[in-house]
């Protein structure tokens, strides 16, 4: 029975990391319809910013979180403003452009910082394990879980309870009609993209103490993030949450019973089969076309 709960907690932890990484993508993909292949590189930039602040400025991870969000959001805003906004309504070109941006970011980091693997220290206050329902759990993983919940709540409020969120939802439904009501779509898109990028950066910084930091670390995350968003249903934040935790529990459980190689294969297979029968994902919100 202990093992069962241990595994549930593990699944929650894997799920929270997936959600953390997918949240930014979900916003950008879901609301702007941009398939952002540079998402993984935003995650990578966040991790590198964390490393930079820690190794060169002596700033701990927790204190760096806000600067990291701002820095990566700024980079995202610049990219939206000077690359993507020039490619409006050209989805295929956007895919190519974001892919290119991703490569540029990756190689840029490799050239300036070097290709060595880096690491970020765990915050000392969270480096131990704690006991939950009689099981020892890594404090940092609990912290990640809580942060993810908070970030999700903030994002949800931003989308549903603020003016800018309302404007964004209006643009999502019909850009030209929204524009004719005086909404500045360009500005809203810029801010949305920046927010999504900033979230990705935060995700990178937060997972960096558990994983390694390298210029090509983003590749794995972008695949995970797309899996979560596609399974959950584009344009559905709640769907993203549900699918992140479903995938987390599923891959955790299969990895425990079999191994991680099998888990990876089976989870991908399950998604492919599911998408075949429900192309719109598990949870969709009805949108007027």
């Amino acid at each position, binding site marked *: 029975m202990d*093992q069962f709960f*241990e*595994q549930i907690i*593990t699944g929650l*932890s*894997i799920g929270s*990391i997936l959600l953390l990484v997918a949240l930014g993508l979900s916003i950008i993909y879901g609301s702007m319809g941009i398939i952002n292949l540079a998402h993984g590189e935003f995650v990578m930039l966040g991790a590198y910013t964390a490393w930079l602040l820690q190794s060169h400025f002596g700033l701990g991870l927790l204190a760096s979180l806000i600067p990291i969000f701002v820095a990566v959001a700024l980079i995202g805003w610049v990219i939206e403003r000077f690359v993507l906004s020039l490619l409006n309504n050209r989805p295929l070109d956007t895919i190519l452009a974001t892919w290119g941006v991703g490569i540029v970011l990756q190689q840029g980091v*490799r050239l300036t910082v070097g*290709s*060595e*693997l*880096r*690491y970020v*220290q*765990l915050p000392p206050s969270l*480096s*131990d*394990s704690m006991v939950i329902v009689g099981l*020892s759990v*890594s404090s*940092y*993983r609990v912290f990640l879980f809580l942060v993810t919940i908070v970030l999700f709540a903030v994002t949800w409020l931003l989308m549903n309870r603020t003016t800018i969120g309302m404007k964004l939802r209006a643009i999502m439904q019909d850009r030209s009609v929204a524009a004719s009501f005086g909404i500045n779509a360009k500005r809203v898109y810029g801010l949305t993209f920046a927010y999504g990028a900033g979230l990705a950066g935060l995700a990178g910084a937060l997972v960096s*103490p*558990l*994983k*390694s930091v*390298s210029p*090509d*670390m983003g590749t*794995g995350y972008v695949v995970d993030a797309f899996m979560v968003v596609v399974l959950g249903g584009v344009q559905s934040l709640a769907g993203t949450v549900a699918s992140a935790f479903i995938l987390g529990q599923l*891959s*955790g459980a299969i*990895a*425990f019973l079999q*191994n*991680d*190689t099998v*888990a*990876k294969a089976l989870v991908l297979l399950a998604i492919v089969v599911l998408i075949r029968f429900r192309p719109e994902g598990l949870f969709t919100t009805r949108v007027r076309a």
Partner: protein
Amino acid sequence: MGISRRTLIKNAAALGAFTGAGFPHIWIKNADLARAAGGEIKVGVLFSLTGTTAIIEESLNKATILAIEEINAAGGIKGSKIVPIVEDPASDPATFSEKARKLVVGDKCVSVFGSYTSASRKAVLPVFERQNNLYWYPTLYEGRECSKNVIYTGAVPNQQQDEFVPWLVKKFGKKFYLIGSNYIYPKEENNYCKKLLEKHGGEVVAEEYVPLGHSEFSSVINKIRSTQPNVIFSTVVGDSVVALHRQYRAAGLDPEKMPMASLTTSENEVAAMGGDAAAGHFTSAPYFQVHKSPENEKFVAAYQKRWGADKVTHFVSEACYFQTYLFKQAVEKLATSDITPPNIRDAVKGAETIAPQGKVRIESENLHTWLWPKIAQCKSNGQFEILVETKEWLKPVPYAAYPGQVCTEKGLAEKS
């Protein structure tokens, strides 16, 4: 004979150049081996500078270049300079093969130093065998290969495990959890480990492989908790090593009770994960940066002077360094007109040099290397403390896990 043949090649080349670009390959096919000429000895340096394994292969490139520069600064080889031709195979086996062909056929290098992964070595092997050229491979690997066109200067399983596994059983207990990345190297190492465990009364509680590049180890850690092994025997590679160590630590597991025993964690990986995550775990290898010997002090000082004081040396970069000196030694034995890959190979058989790790020798039977196995524990400053050093150097047995097979000068033979 040599001269007339060279004239022939020259004529052939001239004719080829004369008759057009598509033509010369016919002459290359008939031409003799790559050969050093004109006071220059061309060698290829084939380590990835971009792509996933660039992280480690860059250091191999650096160690090789350092050795070449040192040799040239000291007057070269009998007056001839070594000219390194550096290619970047971009961590991709197909590119490895293409660049190897370029170095061997196009540039006529007399030897190529290269490869970190087994996949890339397997990819270039046909090129070297067909052209009868020579490849110098510095990495520890799974053994089970027998080619007269490769000089293997890294450890094979028996050289990393023969001391290590019995020592672990004695010190920590007999329950082993085998974990590796999912490809041939960890599987072969584990095959050999299981044989040793059987012999020394150990047992395997689990054997598990994670995908290459895997970075989520929480389920593995749960399994480790539930099986309670005495030793976690790890052949995980690349950035997964970092993730495994950092998550092991975050989960609050204790290296004193349940250490990881690794064949792949070198100073390089430790620098990537941080000393705090690596401290207390064990590695078996022929070389550690802290090894005390005049040759090693010289090597480490020269390396850090050339490439930066924060750089570390490790068991693969050390092999890169000494194999370049073995190359020099072999070429020195040859007349200037005889510098061809097969002659170099014959000259290097049985050759010895004082490497940073101690005196090493190329075994003439299988072209692998006699090495000095060591067991060390990682400290929180990122360096190791050597706990066990063998009194004798250890013969390479690339087919140690396969009792019926031996590698001989004529190739793989079945023992009767």
